């Protein structure tokens, strides 16, 4: 496999212009001092309690996501293109959601296969015909981008359900500003700190009509959840209550919080629990995380859920190949950001090709998340490939395949010193009356040499992401 596009160094070894200020700092700072800063970061993250727990491990087991001192730097010109592309994509995805739960024009015109949407397990029948405030379904979106060997950006996947990780974007920035403040003086780095403010703004904008001063709350599954730190962090930064299902109840189609001064109305819920746990009377009946009657209140337009239930149908991997078509259909524009070429194994030709080239491809389960249900051909043993082949043959429509991209790399501190490691990028997009693209995002890094899996649950780390202002 090729080594991939190096974000910092040119192929012949020179330092790219947008990394030169950082390179000078790196070269002029004694190794021991850098080591001290790295230790300081680790201690600070532990003390602040930015931890996550890993599924499958003993509950309450909290780990730190490793933080790397070398930032990912995006030059201004590149970001302008990304920003326009993200805005366009999220706009189209929202129009798609409004359409498939409404008129279904895109299905009638045969642009997206009807069955792919309507028989998708992420399609929520219950949402059919519901008009959401402002037509916004995905208020908070995280779009995963990768950069391939030629340096071109691709959208790897869309996250429109409950995308997480934004707290790391904010905390990583805070940490960098604390550890290397001098670098922030030497170049203009776009601030990301406004995110919580913009989030509160779009959540208030999403309130049911006629509410002047809406009460917003963040709904969390509780402190055992792997992203609990983030739920608490965002609620605190926005200055709103962090509630669990048991803190809320529904009476006469309105949602109330149980407070020390009696019931208090809640108008907008930024829910960080999945659709199927929202309301046991409508979805999973034995879920204790949600609120009985919540969906009824939602349907009555007395409360807004962000994101809306049912957004998952637009970020499903089986629908992903059609996003460029959606952009053309709804916006009459050419897609600015490209998809990774994708084989849909429900198609006979694609299936045959994939089975013949398993050792070169990445195969993903369409409803899978977190890097669990996937095969990375080049990194797998023969036995693993054969085992996966059987799984594909049993249910081909459950899988898509993509060429193995040689993700771009960024220098990263590992045991042996600085070494290139593969990275991706998740920018965050907020939709209210306007679409806000936050200049930055979460850069995840695969810490194992050669690994392409950046998920934190699989041993990934994070980096601060700097979008430069001014210049090319």
């Amino acid at each position, binding site marked *: 496999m090729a080594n991939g596009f190096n974000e910092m160094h040119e192929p012949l070894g020179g330092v790219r212009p947008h990394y030169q200020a950082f390179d000078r700092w790196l070269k002029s700072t004694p190794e021991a001092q850098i080591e001290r800063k790295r230790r300081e970061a680790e201690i600070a993250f*532990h*003390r*602040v*309690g930015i931890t996550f727990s890993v599924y499958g491990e003993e509950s309450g087991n909290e780990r730190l996501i490793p933080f790397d001192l070398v930032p990912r730097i995006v030059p201004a010109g590149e970001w302008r293109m990304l920003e326009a592309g993200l805005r366009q994509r999220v706009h189209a995805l929202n129009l798609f959601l409004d359409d498939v739960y409404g008129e279904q024009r895109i299905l009638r015109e045969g642009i997206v296969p009807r069955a792919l949407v309507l028989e998708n397990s992420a399609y929520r029948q219950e949402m059919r015909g519901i008009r959401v405030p402002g037509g916004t379904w995905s208020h908070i979106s995280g779009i995963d981008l990768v950069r391939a060997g030629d340096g071109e950006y691709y959208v790897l996947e869309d996250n429109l359900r409950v995308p997480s990780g934004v707290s790391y974007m904010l905390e990583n920035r805070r940490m960098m500003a604390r550890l290397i403040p001098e670098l922030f003086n030497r170049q203009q780095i776009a601030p990301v700190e406004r995110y919580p403010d913009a989030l509160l703004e779009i959540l208030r904008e999403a309130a049911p009509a006629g509410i002047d001063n809406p009460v917003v709350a963040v709904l969390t599954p*509780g*402190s055992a959840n792997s992203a*609990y*730190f983030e739920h*608490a*962090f965002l*609620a*605190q930064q926005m200055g709103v*209550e*962090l*509630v*669990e299902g*048991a*803190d809320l*109840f529904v*009476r006469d189609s309105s949602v*109330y*919080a*149980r*407070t*020390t*001064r*009696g*019931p208090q109305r809640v108008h907008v819920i930024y829910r960080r629990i999945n659709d199927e746990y929202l309301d046991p009377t409508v979805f999973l009946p034995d879920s204790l995380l949600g609120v009985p009657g919540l969906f009824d209140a939602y349907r009555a337009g007395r409360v807004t859920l962000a994101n809306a239930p049912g957004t998952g149908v637009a970020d499903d991997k089986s629908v992903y190949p059609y996003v460029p078509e959606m952009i053309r259909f709804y916006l009459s524009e050419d897609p600015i950001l490209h998809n990774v070429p994708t084989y849909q194994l429900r198609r006979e030709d694609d299936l045959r090709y994939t089975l013949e080239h398993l050792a070169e491809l990445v195969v993903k389960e369409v409803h899978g998340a977190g890097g669990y249900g996937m095969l990375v051909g080049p990194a797998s043993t023969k036995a693993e490939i054969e085992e996966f082949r059987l799984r594909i043959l049993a249910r081909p429509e459950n899988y898509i395949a993509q060429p193995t991209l040689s993700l771009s790399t960024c220098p990263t501190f590992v045991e042996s010193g600085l070494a290139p490691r593969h990275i991706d990028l998740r920018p965050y997009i907020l939709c209210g009356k306007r679409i806000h693209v936050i200049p930055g995002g979460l850069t995840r890094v695969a810490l194992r040499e050669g690994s392409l899996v950046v998920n934190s649950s699989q041993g990934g780390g994070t980096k601060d992401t700097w979008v430069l202002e001014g210049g090319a």
Partner: protein
Amino acid sequence: MLCRTASDLYWASRHMERAENTARLIDVTRRMALLPERYDRGKAEAAPWRRALDALGIAEPFLERYGIIDADTVLKHLLLASDNPSSVFNCLRAAREAARAQRVAITAEMYEDLNTSWLDMRGTSWARIHGDGISNLLEWIKSRSASFRGVTIGTLGRGEGYHFLQLGAFIERADWAIRLLDIAGSPESHAGHESQDAAEYFRWSALLQSLSAFETYRRLYRESVSAERVAELMLLQETNPRSLLTCTHTLHQVLQTLAGGQAMEVVRRAGALSAQSRYARIDEVLANGLEAWLQDALARLSGLGDEIHRQFMISTDIAQLTQTQSQSAA
């Protein structure tokens, strides 16, 4: 504020206060164990430790479980035992867990402070405590409690959250004011026997020192340490920040603020308890029997705790529901 938040904050500060007072209890017990045997009515090394467990009301179950009462067994139980919900280990864990669940309602510094305490506590072991010396651990526990109190006072806005933290801390401290007084043994009139006098003095001054109240006593009374005066200082003196009066008075004020002018049973109870310590006289209390007075105060305190829970930590919709159910059952 959410009922759950109020409850978590209340218990976070209660647990920190409990950890601190456990350290003070151990401190006074260790001091008393230094007294030569012939001065001690118990005539055994274990007697002070037995009294410590008596003050907590757990001597019998303790003996049943461990079969022995000695310094190491009691220390391990009070400091580290994972199956003792009130061990310092579990107190720091519970306080940190509650704060973690309520990070939104407190300041980042407060959470970081409790998190630091817990991470350090989690990393310790009996061997290490022994190596470093118990005294160092006790100092550390007290300083962690002081740190949390200080960070709270210095960073948290004076809203509902602050008030519930206050409630937890002061109801716990009031409870300990009574129990710690118990540990030095009941004050009794004695016939001026010199060795008895020395032992009495030793015990009561050990208690004052453990409560960081020796200097307060000296300034206030300017006389030798006597059982009667110590009891007065612990129960009825407003100048002592750990006295029953100070605690109940603070509880009453905080509850009045929370009630915001509404008539609430919880405020009435706190007021009655506060008045009981404010208008009592130590000679009368002793004449009528200190033990009975203390037992009565403990019971009222526990009733106040229940009422705080009922008023603020159970949602009215659930309270109404239970009421309807019990009515229909009746």
